[in-house]
């Protein structure tokens, strides 16, 4: 993927090059889709929301003034569009209980490829145990390395609230992971 800065592609789009928007979409579609999925909890709906987010961003692109990073601006749209979607559709998100998760982790075969996939699946499920906003905050913080003020902008909260929620979310997720017997990966320890 091209390493041109976002502003370059934005300028191209504003100059009439619609295909340039594809570069921005490819760059951010995973995070936008992940955020939508964490809120609407259904892949099909999340895909629809993600499409809607990029369409909205396209039509509003000329209002983007570059005060915040493009990603922050885009994720904010994604966050609020997803909330609007569940409000309109009145969907009750499904959750997995820790008991179900624990029974699964004990049947895991350590070291095997299947075991590795299951571990990843369990980590995902453990994340789903958190509140919707905690998942969003941790995703933005750990996957996107977003600063507190950026997370605060995306979610419309103060930086202090974002800091507190990261702390609590991390504590809660660590608790769930330890309960499931999931430890640090060896490759990470070596890297440290």
């Amino acid at each position, binding site marked *: 993927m091209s390493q041109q800065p976002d502003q370059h592609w934005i300028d191209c789009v504003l100059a009439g090059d*619609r295909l340039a928007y*594809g570069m921005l979409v490819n760059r951010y579609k995973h995070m936008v889709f*992940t955020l939508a*999925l964490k809120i609407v909890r259904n*892949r099909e709906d999340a895909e629809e929301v*993600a499409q809607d987010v990029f369409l909205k961003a396209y*039509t509003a692109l000329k209002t983007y003034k570059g005060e915040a990073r493009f990603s922050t601006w885009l994720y904010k749209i994604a966050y609020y569009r997803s909330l609007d979607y569940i409000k309109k559709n009145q969907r009750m998100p499904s959750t997995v209980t820790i008991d179900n998760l624990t029974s699964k982790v004990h049947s895991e075969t350590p070291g095997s490829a299947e075991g590795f996939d299951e571990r*990843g699946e369990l980590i995902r499920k453990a994340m789903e145990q958190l509140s919707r906003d905690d998942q969003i905050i941790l995703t933005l913080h750990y996957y996107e390395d977003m600063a507190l003020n950026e997370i605060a902008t995306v979610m419309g909260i103060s930086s202090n609230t974002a800091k507190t929620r990261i702390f609590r979310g991390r504590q809660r997720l660590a608790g769930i992971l*330890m309960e499931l017997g999931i430890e640090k990966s060896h490759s990470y320890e070596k890297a440290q």
Partner: protein
Amino acid sequence: MKKHNEKEQEDLIRSVLRETNLETPSAGFTEQLLSRIEQLPVYGYTTSYTPLISGKAWSVIFLVMISLSLFAVFGMKDVTPEWISQLRLQERLDFSLPESVRNLNLPSALLYGLLAVTIYIYYQVMRLNVIKNQQNQAV
């Protein structure tokens, strides 16, 4: 101690989350989106409005109309050229209406109706012209 715990938690979560990737939308996500975007107006592109009758054509029409009017009022007798009378158009052409048309007797209600429809069509054409101009200015 508390700091140590926090560090442990931070390390655990960073390490664990590194094992999982972000979710991936369907394979044709970008293409589907771009095809939807194609239906939206393009940035930086403005449609150039070309009127049905150009300004130049209107000037010519205006000049012709004025010339004909002036000719009809002031120059009819003096400027009749010899060659027109030589054509003997009055003898060759019959401008009188046919008998059936001359004796046509339409009811007044129908005539008023036709007049109203004509006025209505003229009004529609002018109104549509104004709306079209406004739309073009807005682009």
